[in-house]
């Protein structure tokens, strides 16, 4: 009996080995091209082929699908190898493994949206020391870990786009209100202060009558919108610089009698806002374009890898169709003004 068990043990082990070697062979076959290209890579030391690894917070996220699509197009236009890797869930420890892998493969650059500003630090430092350039986008790490941060939008740009947009929709006069996230959210308060300055300077006939806080909770934001309309019967417009707030406000407006009379704008995502733009509740709202963000990050990474720039303030490079960019303070490149999403272009976006 023991002999049989022993035999079976060996047989099961063999079965496992066979399955596994099959799996490995299959993947090896599928990746035959990369195998040869990495051979070439080790051959030419000075003229290393461009290989850029995109590492989003997690895979299967429509926002990053859009940015990585932009990156892929840019890298391929430059004749480089693009790859997208990442964890299933947005956890820092899982990102570290992918940074390590890219460093082992001596990738030219890693383009990363960090899940933790510090936890990926030592892995990035190690990757940098083996010659890989580090570009962060969307979500930055601490500055010493990366060569360049591609910032999606400046606070000034975000504030101005929303104020100017709403002013245009309401004829540059009347009462407006702001539906924010929470009263102590740093970025929200910075934007609101800048909006107030913009209103004072450029839109003297618009009066900000109220600022309410929906705490980035759908139901609270919905209720606060209802209260705003009740308390201010002459309200002509609402700005909600938060994706949760604008969606809840749009949902309230779309079924209320104020639909079409009270304008709504702010920061939102096309997938959340699509039906409200199509039914006329919202004319235009804003956010940066993640595809452009990915494109710019890819060009920045390529410029660093080629030695065209080093990432210091004042460095200039060209990002394909997006045009010329200059590195600003703190090794940061700014994408530019937010993109407006309206009936004409919302169909082009899926995130």
């Amino acid at each position: 009996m023991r002999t049989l068990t022993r035999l079976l043990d060996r047989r099961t082990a063999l079965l496992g080995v066979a399955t596994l070697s099959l799996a490995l062979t299959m993947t090896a076959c599928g990746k035959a091209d990369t195998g040869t290209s990495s051979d070439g890579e080790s051959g030419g030391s000075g003229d290393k082929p461009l290989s850029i690894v995109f590492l989003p917070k997690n895979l299967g996220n429509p926002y990053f699908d859009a940015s990585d699509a932009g990156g892929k197009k840019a890298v391929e236009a430059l004749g480089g190898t693009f790859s997208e890797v990442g964890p299933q869930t947005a956890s820092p420890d899982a990102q570290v493994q992918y940074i390590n892998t890219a460093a082992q493969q001596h990738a030219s650059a890693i383009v990363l949206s960090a899940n933790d500003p510090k936890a990926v630090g030592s892995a990035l430092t190690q990757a940098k020391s083996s010659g890989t350039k580090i570009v962060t986008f969307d979500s930055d790490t601490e500055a010493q870990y990366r060569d360049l941060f591609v910032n999606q939008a400046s606070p000034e740009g975000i504030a101005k786009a929303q104020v100017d947009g709403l002013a245009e929709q309401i004829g540059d006069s009347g009462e407006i209100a702001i539906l924010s996230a929470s009263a102590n959210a740093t970025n929200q308060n910075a934007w609101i202060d800048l909006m107030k300055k913009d209103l004072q300077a450029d839109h003297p006939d618009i009066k900000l009558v109220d600022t309410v806080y929906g705490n980035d909770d759908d139901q609270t934001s919905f209720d606060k919108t209802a209260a705003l309309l009740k308390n201010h019967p002459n309200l002509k417009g609402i700005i909600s610089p938060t994706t949760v707030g604008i969606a809840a406000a749009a949902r309230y407006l779309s079924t209320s009698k104020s639909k079409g009379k009270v304008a709504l704008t702010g920061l939102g995502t096309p997938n959340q806002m699509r039906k409200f733009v199509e039914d006329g509740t919202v004319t235009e709202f804003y956010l940066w374009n993640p595809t452009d963000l990915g494109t710019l990050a890819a060009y920045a990474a390529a410029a660093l890898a080629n030695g065209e720039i080093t990432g210091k303030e004042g460095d200039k490079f060209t990002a394909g169709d997006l045009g010329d960019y200059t590195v600003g303070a703190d090794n940061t490149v700014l994408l530019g003004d937010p993109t407006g999403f309206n009936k004409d272009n919302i169909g082009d976006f899926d995130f």
Partner: protein
Amino acid sequence: MSERTYPSYTHPLWRRLLIGREAGVIALLVIIWLYGYSNIPYFGDTLTLTYILVDMTTVLLIALPMTLVIVTGEIDLSVASVVGLSSAVLGLLVQHGVGMPLACLTALVTGVICGVVNGFLVAYVGLPSLAVTIGTLALYRGIAVGLLGTTAVTDFPANWTELTSRVLGSSGIPTFMMVFVVLAAIFIALLHFSPFGRGIYDIGLSPEAAEFTGVNVQRTKMILFVLTGTLSALAGIFYTLRFGSARGDNATGLELQVIAAVLLGGVSIFGGRGKLPGVIAGVLLIGALSSALRLEGVTVNVINIIIGLLLVLSVLSTSLLAWVSDIRGSRARRHRVQRPTPTPSSVSSQ
């Protein structure tokens, strides 16, 4: 009736390893390593070895006591939450200016307390460990996230965080592995070469019978849960220092990785079977395989599919083995029953 047998103690450990299911896991590990070494670019670098070992250290540490717990037929699902809680405690103390040695010690004691709570509820109150540790999984994680909120503590002294990435000479083996080697030796001695360890197998095969043969079932279970708590806290300290970041949500979901590796290493989820060398090989197998697949550019979903399949196949092979030996056993019994019957007739005919 299934026939449960003791592992054949008549053979020394090395023989049992050579002929057991552990041999399959170890062979697979060697094959993957050799395959990777000769076929996958960069797999042969010492850096790869470093990364695999550093990546798997937390799982390796927790897998040691987890094996013992599963061999008794119990389970501890709260380990990843203990990692998170000890990380949060460590971070909170460092944030408030407590020195590193004292902060680490407190984090470790936190793990001991977590283990005592689990152990008390399972061993002395007699609740099922599955239910208890699902509860404490949520409880400990809740406390951890409550302590730090959504913030992370990142200001750990560099000479401490460097400890986790330091390597022995040019070997590529992380220095911290020495701690693991010592712990592994202790746990192997405990499980495979001590009366306490034989008691653990006895409990896994039949707690009632173990009680009758003089094994203190309650105390044994209590000790094992305290051990998982303690080693999880040690893993939490390592995790925190390695990433230089203490967060309440650190290592979420790690318990499933640990249990998967333990089962892959040949431990039966029903208790009574399994050996530590197989488990260690199982953990390294998962580490080496994922590293090899990542270097080949395989996406995370496919890696998970392959590791999942491997686990199912390995569990299946154990059941298949037990089933076949069951059939063999009952057939042998039937033979034994049948054989004496003709004897009297043959006697009478004489």
